[in-house]
């Protein structure tokens, strides 16, 4: 196997508000290999969201190192992190985070816009990504005209349009009914099957059960790392 895509060692994150210090992550060591399908599970307040922010390069650790695809991102500036996020990470958020004023394809092309891809190519790739998630006929619809499940599929299309190193889904089904949940989870499964690295952060066991590997986090530490029955 090649070097892991995600390699955290001794990562700590301390939040400070006034004189009170709060340690959200107290020394995390973990690796995620290319092609893994990992679920990070834990109750709220366990440090799950903090870990997700660090993995997504939205924040930097207070201590420890984080190698993403071999690059040390733990000491990068904000502008450098933005570039790394653009190139290596595809986000899927619980609240979808689509721009209401833009049609589906314009939402999907956004990461490519910041990557400096030409307009024509952006459009082609955005439409291809939407077709991949089964929304080829909804290219011109605005988010308001789509169901929750469809909106999340647009978000997934946006996450995969840059062909990132990892797809990071934060409670991707938290706002969806069971039918849409199934569709989105099926989509993540498909991405995994086609060789992508997928990391899902969740507190729902049925979502975690779909992954190959579960990382349980509690009080800022990884307490369990188990392989689930892979198909």
């Amino acid at each position, binding site marked *: 196997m090649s070097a892991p895509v995600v390699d955290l060692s001794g990562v700590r994150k301390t939040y400070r508000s006034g004189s009170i210090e709060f340690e959200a992550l107290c020394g995390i060591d973990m690796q995620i290999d290319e092609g893994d399908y990992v679920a990070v599970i834990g109750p709220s307040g366990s440090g799950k969201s903090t870990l997700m*922010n660090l993995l*997504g390069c*939205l*924040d930097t650790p207070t201590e420890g190192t984080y190698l993403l695809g071999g690059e040390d991102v733990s000491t990068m500036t*904000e*502008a450098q992190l*933005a*570039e790394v*996020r*653009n*190139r290596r990470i595809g*986000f899927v*958020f619980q609240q979808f*985070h689509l*721009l209401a*004023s*833009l049609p589906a394809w314009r939402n999907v092309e*956004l*990461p490519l*816009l*910041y*990557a*400096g891809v030409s*307009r024509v190519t952006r459009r082609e790739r955005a439409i291809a990504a939407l077709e991949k998630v089964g929304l080829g006929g909804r290219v011109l619809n605005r988010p308001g005209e789509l169901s929750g499940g469809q909106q999340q599929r647009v978000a997934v299309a*946006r996450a995969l349009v840059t062909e990132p190193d990892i797809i990071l889904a934060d409670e991707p089904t938290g706002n969806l009914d069971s039918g849409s949940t199934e569709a989105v989870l099926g989509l993540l499964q498909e991405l995994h099957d086609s060789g992508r690295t997928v990391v899902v952060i969740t507190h729902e066991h049925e979502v975690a059960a779909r992954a190959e590997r579960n990382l349980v986090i509690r009080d800022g530490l990884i307490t369990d790392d188990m392989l689930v029955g892979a198909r």
Partner: protein
Amino acid sequence: MNWVETFRTAVDAVRAHRLRSLLTMLGIVIGISSVILTVGLGQGAQDKVKDQISALGSNLLIVSPGSTTSSSGVRGGFGSSTTLTLQDASAIADRDVVPDALRVAPVSTSSTSLTVGDTNWTTSMVGTTATWPQVRARTVSQGRFFTSAEVTSGADVTVIGADTASELFSGPVSPVGQQVSVDGAQLTVIGVLASSGSSSTGSSEDDQAVVPISTQKRLTGSTNSSVSTIYVQGASDDTLTAAYQEINALLLNAHDVTAASADFTVSTQQSLVETANSTNKTLTVLLGGIAAISLLVGGIGVMNIMLVSVTERIREIGLRKALGATPSVIRRQFLVEASLLGLAGGVIGIVIGYVGSLVLPSLIDQPVSLSLLATCAALGTSLALGVGFGVYPASRAARLTPIDALRSE
């Protein structure tokens, strides 16, 4: 992300919030249109004065009486004293003394009431000499002007302005040969002046009754020989300065005064235009200053709304950052958005200003002349306002951290 894409994103954002964008622009729209209009009004007033003064005649020198000083030391305005006389006029007319003066026309003005049948018309009676039409560049459209002989004899004749003629005589009857009664005396209308043309010169040039100066003195019962103005036509444009100096020297000598205590003023058309303009300029600067303050307020409005917009679109900013927008890209996007609002406000303001300049003259009877320079300056200002007041909101947006921005509801 290049500028074209940044511009597109900004246009999208402006269009996505149409009403808010419009309200943001409103301050700039009002500011720019009022600047355009005030500058236009000031310019229009200057042009009007210039027209009026150049309509006086060509190569003209105007000699007016100086100010009076009463025994208590209170000085009246220029022209309030009666120091100029007919003798001064005839001295200036002497080509041996003032070789560069071509013609001289002394003028004495009074207000009077003309009566024809039961029609009454109050106008100004201008007493002058036969040289007046040439000096003042006026022509007679019907009949003739009075002669030197009629001036000497004090003949009961008058030449009336075009507007005066139409006020007094209606119908197809020619005014020439008709009788007009003035202060109990009967004057014969021997001519009608051609209209002075350009309407911006005001109607007073076309509403007057010109009579021989001796006749006017007799009608008003005046015994002195003072005149209110002496118009002098210079021989040519090049010798106007020479004529000015000759007249000045002559009158100083004749009135036995020094230059410091001169009781008269000799002005050229140029100097009259300058005096009038300096008054207008003060007014224009004042009004323009008020308009500029409204522009400033408009700019603060842009900043205010942009700050609200940054707060309101905090999730959008967070998302864009998560997807790879660097702080400088976000800053640029908001800056371009603010300048776009400023510029669009400026363009709308200019359009309103131009429309106003077409409508306003008919409402307030003041000409408005718009200059290309003022328009370009307005456009530049509106852009600068957008950029200037966009900097702070843009840097606020750029500083937001993506996690906080994404998490906010």
